[in-house]
């Protein structure tokens, strides 16, 4: 299988990139290509022009500035996982990245490509939601910052205009322990249920818990009601189960051959209960 004919161009600068995108309406940015190329081979997507941004070194930086981790959009999943700083200070991000595809996919696939593709089951999405990530988007006029929840508009739909490029992902530091869990049949599959959680404790009470679930019709959803039910309280397994079931009952999980909404809700509740229990109890060990 091979795609329809297209013309390939390598971007040498932002100006070059915007010139090209504006000139050719049927053009797409090519990042790692690990989502776009399979779609093109199946002819689900047939852009007539591809502009490769893999050689724009400005987009490959990982830095920590002004209290925020800044990840360039063309950082690959492998590069993120191999960053000692990210592993130590933002382990949730590298945990999510490690769940993506397989080693080969992670070599080429990029953080920015995954976010802009916005598959609702994407591993980064629930993690970025609980991390309160913001996205820095560049266009010809300058840059704009968009919170991740506002950027993802739905399945495969984002706030990115045709002649814009995602430049950086900005993530503030967080306190407490974090965890990302994904349920799938085979490791490299898209997730059937995935959950990201951050939890801190003060004395014996839960503090600043954040829980987001992926693989929903809308992409990733944060469970604010559940967080409110858990915050400032001691841990109670019964209360957690009840609150999780109620919150998850209101969700719209994807409905496809991998699982029905009811099955997915069941998985999500199980993951949330296990993860919160684990985060609370092992987090508390650090205070003893």
């Amino acid at each position, binding site marked *: 299988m091979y*795609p*329809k004919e297209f013309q*390939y161009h390598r971007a040498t600068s932002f100006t070059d990139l915007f010139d090209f995108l504006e000139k050719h309406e049927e053009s797409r940015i090519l990042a790692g*290509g690990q989502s776009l190329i399979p779609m093109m*081979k199946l002819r689900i997507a047939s852009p007539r022009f591809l502009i490769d941004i893999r050689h724009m070194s400005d987009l490959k930086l990982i830095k920590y500035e002004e209290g925020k981790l800044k990840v360039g959009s063309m950082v690959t999943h492998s590069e993120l996982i191999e960053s000692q700083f990210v592993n130590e200070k933002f382990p949730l991000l590298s945990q999510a990245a490690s769940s993506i595809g397989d*080693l080969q*996919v992670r*070599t080429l696939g990029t953080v920015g490509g995954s976010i802009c593709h916005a598959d609702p089951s994407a591993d980064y999405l629930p993690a970025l939601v609980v991390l309160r990530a913001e996205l820095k988007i560049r266009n010809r006029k300058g840059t704009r910052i968009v919170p991740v929840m506002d950027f993802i508009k739905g399945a495969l739909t984002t706030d990115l205009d045709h002649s814009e490029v995602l430049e950086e992902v900005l993530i503030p530091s967080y306190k407490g322990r974090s965890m990302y869990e994904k349920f799938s049949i085979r*490791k490299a599959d898209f997730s059937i249920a995935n959950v990201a959680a951050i939890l801190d404790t003060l004395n014996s009470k839960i503090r600043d818990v954040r829980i987001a679930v992926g693989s929903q019709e809308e992409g990733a959803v944060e469970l604010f009601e559940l967080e409110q039910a858990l915050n400032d309280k001691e841990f109670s397994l019964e209360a957690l189960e009840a609150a999780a079931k109620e919150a998850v009952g209101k969700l719209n999980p994807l409905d496809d051959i991998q699982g029905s909404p009811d099955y997915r809700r069941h998985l999500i509740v199980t993951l949330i209960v296990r993860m919160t229990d684990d985060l609370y109890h092992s987090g508390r060990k650090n205070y003893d």
Partner: protein
Amino acid sequence: MTEVHIKINGTTYQGNVEDRLLLVHFIRDVAWLKGVHIGCDTGHCGACTVLLNGKPVKSCQIFAVQADGAEVLTVEGLAKGNETSIEQKAFIDNFAIQCGYCTSGMLVMAHYMIRKYPQLTRDQIRDYLHGNYCICTGYAQIVDAVEDAQKNYRKQ
């Protein structure tokens, strides 16, 4: 059409190719190296795995034009002439090949893994190989072979 130069196993191959030509087809049909295989064409099976600038990629998921100016290692580049590489010997010794279709991808992955990661456990070997499918062996002998290759590589 674009003129591309790709260095494969130390030799530069040149071709005037369609932009939509996949790297796997460049390697097989322009460079005429048939070791890399197309198993599924949807990017799952990993039979097309090669090293691109030293890192593993599925060559059916990247266009030749993207690899212009890059260096590629295929199974043919693991050893010279009639020699067998450490990985190849380990696969033979551990009966890790039946039909051989997945083998070139598995060997390239093994070559990469034993150099990149210190002291791989069997679980880690399985983990890093989950982008490479094998229908024949049931994987156990392949894991044995990678473990064996790792041991022999460390001995050198």
